[in-house]
């Protein structure tokens, strides 16, 4: 293989970083952690990742990838199929439409944007999930999950920005 080809493959693989991270986080969310009361309120890890990469590298996370990963999450965890896929798409769509706002903003502003967006996502999934299941899903776990997801954002965003710095700088 010529150097040009190796270069291309390398670039391609680095471009897959966001999708790979989300896939990994889907697994992290599906594994039993045996922590008291965690399972029903497992933070929405994929939501954090989709928000982060939609802001910082939207070119490396196409809608189709978000959809496929959301669908995979639904199939793996037993969530009503299509629910997570739809909510993740919605979040990415909103971020994409507000790109001008998010451009070059400090971390706190981005986190604040996330705290506004998570309740919207939670409410949407609660309404659609309840309609789908034909019964009102208890809202408390959803509220706790939303809060945990917001609190976890700085941690995961820190990890993502390190990864982005090391793997995707020249992409």
């Amino acid at each position: 293989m010529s150097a040009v080809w190796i270069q291309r493959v390398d670039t391609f693989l680095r471009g897959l970083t966001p999708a790979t991270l989300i896939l990994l986080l889907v697994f992290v969310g599906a594994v039993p952690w045996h922590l008291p009361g965690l399972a029903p309120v497992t933070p929405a890890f994929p939501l954090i990742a989709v928000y982060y990469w939609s802001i910082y590298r939207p070119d490396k996370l196409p809608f189709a990838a978000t959809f496929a990963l959301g669908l995979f999450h639904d199939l793996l965890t037993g969530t009503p199929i299509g629910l997570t896929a739809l909510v993740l798409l919605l979040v990415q769509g909103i971020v994409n439409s507000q790109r001008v706002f998010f451009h070059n903003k400090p971390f706190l502003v981005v986190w604040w944007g996330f705290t506004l967006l998570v309740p919207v996502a939670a409410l949407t999934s609660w309404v659609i999930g309840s309609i789908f299941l034909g019964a009102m899903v208890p809202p408390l776990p959803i509220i706790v999950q939303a809060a945990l997801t917001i609190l976890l954002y700085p941690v995961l965003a820190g990890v993502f920005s390190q990864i982005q710095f090391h793997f995707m700088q020249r992409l």
Partner: protein
Amino acid sequence: MLAVPLRALLQRFAFGLLAATAITLMVLSRAEPELIERLRTGITDASAPILQFFSQPAASVASALDEIDAVMAVHEENAALRDRNARLLKWQAVAQQLAHENEVLQGMLNVVPDPRATFVTARVIGDSGGPFVRTALINAGAAHGARKGLAVINGEGLIGRIVEAGERSARILLLTDLNSRIPVVMEASRDRAILAGDNTPRPRLEFLAVDSRAGVGDRVVTSGEGGLFPPGLPVGIVSSVREDGVLVQPFVDWDRLEYVSVLDYTLPGVLPSTRRAERVGSLR
């Protein structure tokens, strides 16, 4: 490179198409559950080795924490266990005597024996990880004898039943799930009811007779009605009796589900086993 406006248009088109697909899938999974179920079992089968790999470190972290806890409490626990052991030895004597007596009496009455249940034990490799469903994935599937409809238990009591079985993985619907309905009976008063999950930790008893004398602390066990679950599996105890319903606290500790047993309880010769499972599946 495409022109920027054209790209934006394509993006919008993709978004609309994918969102519509997601909604279509939701509707389809209600209309054609079989199709989606096959998709699900395919995905969980393929992911089972990965989940198994990931769930091992998670389990060891949890058990390390337990270990620390256990060392801290070892003295008190020892005293409590000695005490309990003494009491259990007495109970053991009583139980042996009763078992013997029961056997003799059943022999005198020519009682038809209940079929013996066989079981496979499997590890929990995934949980629902979300607020909408209460399910768990185990690393046993059709290849190991786990079929749709079978009861799943552990040492503490009933956990739920299998709703999807792939080749090497299966999904358990926990008895706390919104969709779970299990025929139960109050152990002492023999009042029958349906234990209905509602995604909260404490499912409620439905269709309990109005004149039922159910009280807090009563044991609830499976009734065996429908022939799917063996009768007498411990489920939980009544935790509150109020105007709006009777709640049951299951015996199972949901945070520590590690190994579970899938019970194959089929009345031999009554019905072909697969038909039974299907029938129950369609009752859902």
